């Protein structure tokens, strides 16, 4: 292609160019005249064409946030850039440019049609977020590696693909390879992919394709599991009892307790430790189950609260609309009658009546709003009270269960103490049968050391339990507070202000309308 523009200086997208393009491509005729007078906001432009302008660098497009279609073909662009803010883009044409690398397209998630025809691209890459892609043209580029095409498998909606005039098209298996590995394609290189050739291609690459499918499926399952687990955990977190259904708390107790770990190696402790763990776990599970059950209860409560509030608001809205409709009917009638009147006094009388009616409407609407405010206030109060009760019981129960944990720990501590002393005695008397580690030996020197070690281990354990308790209690209280505050803010204050301003706005409009009419008649 002979480039007429080669002689022209390379250009940069600037204000002037954009303005010109927008005006040229904007509304025509009368609408165009009006638009010109008023000025066109770049933010409102939906489609923009900047072709054959010898543009070297994409720039200054950040204002076009609503843009859905952008044509930058037949320029000399070397790098994809400056498109980050055009998040609504559906169609992007960058054909006949000098692009070497696909890049900087991550924010264009709505993109459906991407044309990079006749560039210098050698690898398909950096398009992970373009999951809505329908049409992709990569013809006449420098693509050499067929394997690279597997990258396109992630685009489930991709139906049309153009890869012609790439180096790898000369390979014999090119077409079948593409069809086999991108079997969702409907059009390849300007042609319909028929079932027959698809079947043939799939048959040819049966083995590697199956393997690939299998791998993909495995990955998918894994991903699903992961998300499921994540969701589960999220749910537990919302119930404030995450990880309580496992040995997490127990393990945490020993995680920072090095001495405890050493002490656990004392002979004769195994049974004790085992039963302690079991009991501890049991209580943890209890806490977990209780927490989940309470959480569901609270959810139910919140749900029913919102339902009722929504219902009340809907009822109120309906009543308000009925009033407005009634008024609109009378207004229509009155205006019609007024327009047929000639007597000035009568008209004035009517106008006064009308104003009275507006006042009545205002009273009614405001009355309804006040009623709703009262109703909601009452309901919210009740809800708050109930929620607080529920949270209270939850906290109490959790505390009771955790104090059971503490008791267990105390018990365990005593037993530990006994065993430690016995062991110490044995060590001192050298009656110990089993070998013990050096770490433990270090502790088993005298009574004070061992007692200190056991006590400090005990303290660490209690601290962990306390921490857990604190964590649960503060979190639940905090979130309850947030919820209630938000409800007060949204449902009482914001809603009320909005409605009142709406009513006033409406009434003002109605009055104004009347005034205008009077002025016109006068």
């Amino acid at each position, binding site marked *: 292609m002979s480039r007429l523009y080669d002689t022209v200086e390379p250009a940069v997208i600037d204000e002037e160019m954009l303005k010109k393009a927008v005006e040229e491509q904007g*509304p025509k*005729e*009368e*609408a165009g005249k*009006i*638009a010109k*007078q*008023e000025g*066109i*906001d770049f933010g*409102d432009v939906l489609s923009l064409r900047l072709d054959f302008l010898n543009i070297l660098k994409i720039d200054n497009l950040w204002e076009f946030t609503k843009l859905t279609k952008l044509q930058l073909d037949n320029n000399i662009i070397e790098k994809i850039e400056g498109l980050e803010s055009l998040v609504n883009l559906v169609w992007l044409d960058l054909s006949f440019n000098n692009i070497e690398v696909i890049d900087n397209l991550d924010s264009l998630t709505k993109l459906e049609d991407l044309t990079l025809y006749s560039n210098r691209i050698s690898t398909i890459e950096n398009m992970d977020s373009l999951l809505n892609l329908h049409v992709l043209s990569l013809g006449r580029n420098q693509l050499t590696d067929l394997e690279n095409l597997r990258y396109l498998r992630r685009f489930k909606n991709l139906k049309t693909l153009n890869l012609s005039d790439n180096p790898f098209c000369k390979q014999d298996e090119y077409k079948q390879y593409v069809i086999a590995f991108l079997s969702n394609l409907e059009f390849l290189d300007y042609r319909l992919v028929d079932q027959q050739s698809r079947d043939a291609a799939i048959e040819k690459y049966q083995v590697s394709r199956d393997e690939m499918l299998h791998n993909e499926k495995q990955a998918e399952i894994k991903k699903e599991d992961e998300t499921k687990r994540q969701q589960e955990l999220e749910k537990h977190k919302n119930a404030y009892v995450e990880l309580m259904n496992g040995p997490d708390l127990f393990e945490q107790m020993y995680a920072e307790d090095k001495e405890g770990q050493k002490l656990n190696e004392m002979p004769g402790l195994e049974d004790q430790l085992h039963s302690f763990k079991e009991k501890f776990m049991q209580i943890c599970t209890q806490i977990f189950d209780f927490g989940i059950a309470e959480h569901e209860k609270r959810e139910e*409560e919140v749900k*029913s*609260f919102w*339902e*009722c*509030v929504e*219902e*009340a*608001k809907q009822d109120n*809205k309906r009543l*308000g*609309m009925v009033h*407005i409709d009634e008024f609109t009917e009378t207004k229509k009638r009155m205006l019609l009658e007024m327009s047929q009147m000639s007597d000035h006094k009568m008209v004035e009388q009517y106008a006064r009546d009308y104003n009275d009616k507006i006042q009545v409407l205002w009273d009614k*609407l405001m009355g309804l709003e006040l*009623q709703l405010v009262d*109703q*909601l206030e*009452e*309901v919210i109060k*009740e*809800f708050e009270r109930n929620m607080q009760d529920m949270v209270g019981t939850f906290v109490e129960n959790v505390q009771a269960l955790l104090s059971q944990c503490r008791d267990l720990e105390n018990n365990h501590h005593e037993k530990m103490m006994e065993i430690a002393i016995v062991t110490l005695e044995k060590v001192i008397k050298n009656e110990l049968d089993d070998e013990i580690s050096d770490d433990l030996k270090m502790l088993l020197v005298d009574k004070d050391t061992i007692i200190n070690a056991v006590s400090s281990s005990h303290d660490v354990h209690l601290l962990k339990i306390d921490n857990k308790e604190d964590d649960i209690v503060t979190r639940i209280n905090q979130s309850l507070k947030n919820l209630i505050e938000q409800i007060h803010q949204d449902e009482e204050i914001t*809603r009320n202000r*909005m*409605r009142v*301003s*709406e*009513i006033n*706005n*409406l009434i003002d*409009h109605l009055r104004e309308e009347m005034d205008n009419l009077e002025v016109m008649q006068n």
Partner: protein
Amino acid sequence: MDSSEMNEGEIHQIDSDDVIKEEDETENEEGEDLTEDAEALKAELAKIVVHPPSYEQSLMEEFDQAEFSPSYKDNLPKENLVLQYAENFRRQMVQLYRDRKPLFLNPVNECGVEKFVCTTIRPTLLEFKELYNWDGAAEFVADYLNIEPLKPEYELPKRLISPSTVLKRQKGNCFEYSTLLCSLLIGAGYDAYVISGYATKETCLADESRDICPLLKKKEEVQEEARKKEMKKYNVKPPRDLRSKFELKQEAKKEAEKQAEKEKQRKEEEERIAELEKPPPDPYFGLRIHAWVLVLSGKREVPENFFIEPFTGLSHPMDSSNYLGIESVWNNVNYWVNMQDCSEGVKGLSFDLGDSTVWEFMFPNNDKPLLKIPDAEDDLNDMDDDEHIEHGKDDEEHEVEKYLDMPPSWVDALKLSHRDFQMRCPHGKKTKVYKRAKLEKFAHYLMKDGLISRLSVYEDRELTDLMKVHEYYAHRSDKLTQKLTNHRTGQVCENFDPGRPRCLKEHQFKSSTPGPENERVMIFYHEARVDGLVKREETQTEMTEEYSNRDDFLFYKYVEFGKRAKKFGPQETSSANKGRPINKMIQKFHRNRNKPANEDIAEIIFHVAEDKIHISYHTEDVRIAASTREFLKPPNWDEKGAVLTFNPEMHQTFQVDPMLPMNKQVELYEMLMELLKAEEKCRNEVRDSQNEVRNILDDRTKEEAASELDISVYDTERNEKAKKHRRELERQQLEEKMRKQEMDIDYLAPFLAKIGNPEKLSKQQAFSLKEECLADLKQRLIDKANLIQARFEKESQELEKKQAWYQQNQVSMGKEDEEEYLTYCKEAIFRIHILDLRLTRHKEQAPHKYMQLEQKLRNDERLSEFF
């Protein structure tokens, strides 16, 4: 009666009157002297009146005996046995219950032979699906037969005609009706019985003029229970009611009183009407004999027992007041006599037929021994006198040996042709009179316009003041199914089946103004319409259309028409089609959730007359007011190709949310352009609607004028086209066959003829025949080969000649000649080649043909015996 006879009669009358007068006079003369005693005696004597027994002429129809099968004319030994048994049973009953009415046991049949009633029932399942259910069967029997009332009405009939004959003559009395119906029901698997008993006069005479027509009875509407509002925990409290409780109470009291007063009045009125409508007292009340059908629960998923009245085909509950008593009950296997008191009608009777304390059975082989008490029979026998004891013993022995079971029915299989079934009523027509209503039924395809029934409802009981007519149609090609004409209001309502062009479902209009642009309602099958039109209502100046399920969310359209501008001049006819000017158009839309409420139009009003367009938007979820917008149309909007200008004064708006940025002028301008387009579109649609109405009305007029009936392709009897087609096919087949026969020319015929067509061939003849035949074929094959060869040679010679000629004249020849020669050569070579091929093939095939013939001769049946 002749007039002369009349006169004679009158004369006689006068004569006798004279005589009586004379007698009276003499009596009177004597009477003057009579004492009071004598007067009393006279009065007493006057009470005694004797009626000379009038000889009831037996009106029994005679039947041609020849058309019945022997079973009708004679009894089998077993039947005789059963008859004896029945006679014995009867005698025992008479003995035991002297004041009981005689039982209906063994009437004579149409051939004058006594038959037991149980054997007259012939369970049959006919091939019509309508007869499979009891209601269909009952309706069929009621429709198919004509009623012959019993004569006299308080005596059992002497004769019971078999159901097969009843079907043929299409009339019968209640016993024959019941027997036929029972046969059909038992055949269809119901537990059905014939009941002989007593009923009211209306029932016996099938007088339904006091009953409301079943078609008019409103179906009990299943009222959907209003969903109770769930009391949820956080339901808001309703605002406090500030009205006085006391006043409310007083109000309610007053209201209740008024209501009670009204209720009372209504009841009184109802009672009065009921009193008026009561039938006159019947002298034979409780004596009128009737037969009807009982269906017991259990089989065919019948949940509870009920009666079927055979004359009307309707079911009656077990406590129906129409039936006054039951004598006996029977089906095809047994006969039971009612032992319960019927002084209160049939109310409270037990129908546990196995309970022998309430039902006396006749045959012990009761197939439903529900409550069999073994001593019952013995007790009965013990009480009998000697003779009967003997009889009883016999019976008992009988029982011990084997139960006497019912002989098979003597009646021939019931037959009903398809045609008769479709004709339904005798001659295809039947009229029934109900209370203030008359129902006429017609067989399908009987009436030209497809009418199958017509129900006329009257204001009064004498059926003179017509209120409305309900007509039902079937098989009409215009799909009309119902037509309701209200003669009071002149309103006509037509219903259609799906399948019409333009999908019309219902059409209501005034019969006085059937033309377009008048009051009418059209309801459509909107699922089938592209535009989803549900209903179009018209008055003289308005039109309202309702839509459903449209992609553009339109659901309502209203148009107000102005008066047609009067035009003077000769173009009156063309302007009539132009339609009226439109004053106002309203379109309403459902909420489109994909758009923000503030941009989703809820209603557009085109004030066409005022050049204004008013738009209301949907209300946002959190708001109560809706945004509105009003445009004035540019002054030159209806000029074609004109540049439409716009200025801000042409637009007014109210935005619910004042914070929203104002629309730009360009947007407003484009909006206005869109609206102008929408208006144009709406106007066109209105015109289209008007045209559609006109077309529909035209179609209707045409259809009414020439109503055609559709004939199903499966209806082989009526479908003339199919018949023709079938006949054509048959004819073709026949022709084909003929041709085949012709093709099968006997190849031996000429040879046989040579030896004089002998009946049978001798061996020698056969051999010589074969030889001859083969030789003939050989000759022919050789001839053919020679022929081909001759032609081949001829062609070759000609070609050679031509070639020689060409070589001689080659020099002097023009181009055309040369070409001609070349084509000739080509063709000739082609022909020669073909001939060559043919000869080769012939040579190949000839021996095969020869062998084939030989084989054929060998297998020929005339010659086969020799080879």
